[in-house]
């Protein structure tokens, strides 16, 4: 093993060096560039793929990837490259919206449990436990069973399904900071509880919210596309990744590219957000 065993010394000095900014690793650099491209594709798809994503050309149907059609064409001869690029904004929007719903609801529940009375805490914690018994996609499906399918219900369902996870993290964070030596030191100075909460507890406890949201967008895109793939989200022929995948499902044997490229786009977003989210969270931990 090339890892240098930590030298157990009586004195702690290395912390100072831990906060020094580490340069981006190769993987992180790739992730950052990828995310940048994705954002450009979402904001200005025309810059990358000038072709019309909805233009039909039946003669070109099922064309394999080539110079003319880098990602091939679908069953109606539409250019898949254009469709993937133009689908970015819709897919990302679903992911971002779902994450926003989940994080906001998670914040409400987490803060209620974290700073509320014992009773509130127990009540919210129990509720979260119950919701954990219905794991993500299943909870989303149950919600769709009541609300009905479609892109908006799917987004809401994914958002609601992710909320318990966020709520639990926020609750734990708040509790941890509340019992920290830092808060104790502020109390010794004579800080009022309300000010303590606003000035120390919440800002420190909720600092990871950005990280979690970053990580969450990737996951939400995957879930939302799973719902579309199962026929419960965006319907075809909208250029949305999940819907494109569902369309490609039928032709998997003859046109693998109809599945491969939208799928790769999803993996790209999910992986890039994971890598960057992990770096952010490591930095947060370093600073504590």
């Amino acid at each position: 093993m090339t890892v240098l065993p930590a030298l157990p010394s009586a004195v702690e000095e290395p912390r100072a060096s831990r906060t020094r900014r580490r340069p981006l690793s190769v993987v992180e650099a790739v992730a950052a560039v990828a995310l940048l491209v994705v954002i450009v594709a979402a904001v200005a798809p025309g810059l990358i793929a000038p072709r019309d994503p909805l233009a039909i050309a039946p003669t070109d149907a099922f064309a394999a990837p080539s110079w003319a059609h880098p990602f091939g064409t679908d069953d109606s001869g539409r250019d898949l490259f254009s469709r993937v690029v133009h689908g970015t904004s819709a897919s990302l929007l679903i992911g971002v919206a779902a994450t926003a719903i989940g994080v906001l609801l998670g914040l409400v529940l987490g803060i209620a449990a974290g700073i509320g009375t014992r009773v509130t805490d127990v009540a919210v914690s129990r509720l979260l436990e119950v919701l954990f018994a219905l794991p993500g996609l299943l909870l989303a499906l149950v919600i769709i069973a009541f609300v009905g399918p479609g892109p908006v219900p799917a987004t809401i369902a994914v958002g609601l399904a992710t909320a318990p996870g966020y709520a639990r993290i926020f609750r734990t964070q708040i509790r941890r900071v509340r019992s920290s030596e830092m808060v104790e030191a502020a109390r010794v100075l004579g800080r009022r509880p309300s000010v303590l909460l606003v000035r120390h507890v919440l800002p420190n406890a909720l600092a990871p919210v950005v990280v979690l949201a970053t990580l969450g967008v990737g996951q939400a895109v995957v879930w939302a596309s799973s719902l579309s793939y199962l026929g419960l989200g965006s319907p075809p022929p909208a250029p949305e990744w999940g819907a494109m995948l569902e369309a490609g499902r039928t032709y998997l044997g003859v046109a693998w590219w109809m599945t491969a490229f939208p799928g790769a786009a999803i993996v790209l977003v999910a992986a890039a957000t994971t890598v960057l989210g992990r770096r952010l969270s490591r930095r947060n931990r370093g600073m504590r």
Partner: protein
Amino acid sequence: MSGGTIGVAAVAEGAAGASPGSLVVDDLSVSFGSVRAVDGVSFTLAPGECVALVGESGSGKSVTARALLGLTGGAVSAAALRLDDRSLLDLTEREWRRLRGPRIGLVLQDALVSLDPLRPVGREIDDALRLHSRLTAAQRRARVLEVLDEVGMPDPASRRAQRSGELSGGLRQRALIAAALALRPGLVIADEPTTALDAQVQRQVVDRLAALRDEGTAVLAISHDLAAVRRLADRVVVLRNGRVVEQGPVASILGSPAEPYTQALVAALPAGKPRGARLSAAAVGGGGSGSGVGSGSDVGSLADAGSVSDVGSVADVGTRQPLLRASGLGRTFRGRAGDLTAVADVSLEVSAGETLGLVGASGSGKTTTARLLLGLDSPDTGIVELLGEPWNPLPERERRDRRPTLGAIYQDALSSFDPRWTVARLLADALSFGRVTRTGGRASERRGASADDVARLLDEVGLPRSVAERSPATLSGGQRQRVAIARALAPSPRVIVCDEPVSSLDVTVQAQVLDLLDDLQRDRGLAYVFISHDLDVVRHQCDRVAVMSGGRIVEQGATEAVFGSPQHAYTRALLTAAGA
């Protein structure tokens, strides 16, 4: 396996002295990338001898020790590196493995994490035997019991099956030593073997290592604790920044050091220095991250440097009214499997300009007492009075306005700071409490004044003004503790409760911080409650001392009286253990 059979057989018989363990280290260097952690270190070690590597953090002493085990992970080079007649340079991993255990044993600090916390200690000792001998399971078992018995483990048969977390600090450290001694290595390397242990346990460990040396084993001790080194070592090698500063017999190095650095190290030791004597007069600014921060001696304005005791007059407190007084404090924690009485019937008081020491082993109730004094926890019985008025128990709302009178300093300064704040913001925030500042009452006006106030505060604790805009996480341990002290001072308190304020600092930094606390006490007439497990520090720093054991104060009185002629059996045991 081939070739090693004879050696293994000898080890298996456990014949003492099978490997005498004479060590030659000549011009040893270890680099990690471009960083040279050890640079040209040379020393020798003979069987039956103990050499101590001494230095502060970052001095390269631990890396040197690991180089002798082939476990540095860096690039090792030396003119010679020999154990007996065998060169330790360019060994393969396989060859190293055959030496580790039978020929060289390693004892680390803190057995709680140096033994696998998930496995019984007997298994850990057994591992060494299993790897290096052909003993049967029954024979190994017998040997495990034998070794445990040798290190003085009571009831080895049942202790063997316990994990490090289930054993007390002393017992688990013995188990760790037993694991290193199972194969009777000729050379034992003890890396900070006494750090973080209570005085009595420290004494046991030092005695055990001394006995080992007397039996003919070569012992290489690594420590920043010069007191322990003095009791154990024959010769001392002083390291700094990876180089040898000086080396020689323990008496001459610690008695009359030649090099300024060693002089500073020795001067910084609180042991035997009377109350008020300066420890950091010959400050060398060691231990810092090299950022050139003014050490205590830069603060000439408030410290008449070098002078020994003006403090006597301040400490001479007879009839003054106590600032903080606790009477009959009791606190019991309710648990599932029963109650734990953390503090029982604790009464103490401290007056202006006075330092009250609170000593005792870990778990004796010192920290709970501190929390009760600070009003962070409510007592089940008894009362705390601050400036003659009731303080705890009292609803927080009714005492909040008086909080600025009472400050606190913690062991881990960093975790008591808001990690998002700079030093300036931390101090400005603390300044907004307490008495209305010179410039008036309104918050907006105060903000204008605080840059000056912050600078004044930094001056007072001997920090350069440039640290104001830095985050505490980027400061060295000593600097952080100074920031913590500055923050405690900001609201102009009368009493400060210090919970192990220097326990995680290097000895020269510790000296500076202790001197700083003394200076501030003299200037501001502060009262300190000073909690520490280090008897030498307490004896040097405190006017009066209270000894705690099992949640009670067993003895209390003037420091020299308590240390000079202890009345209670526990105090005597504590002092004997500390070698005082």
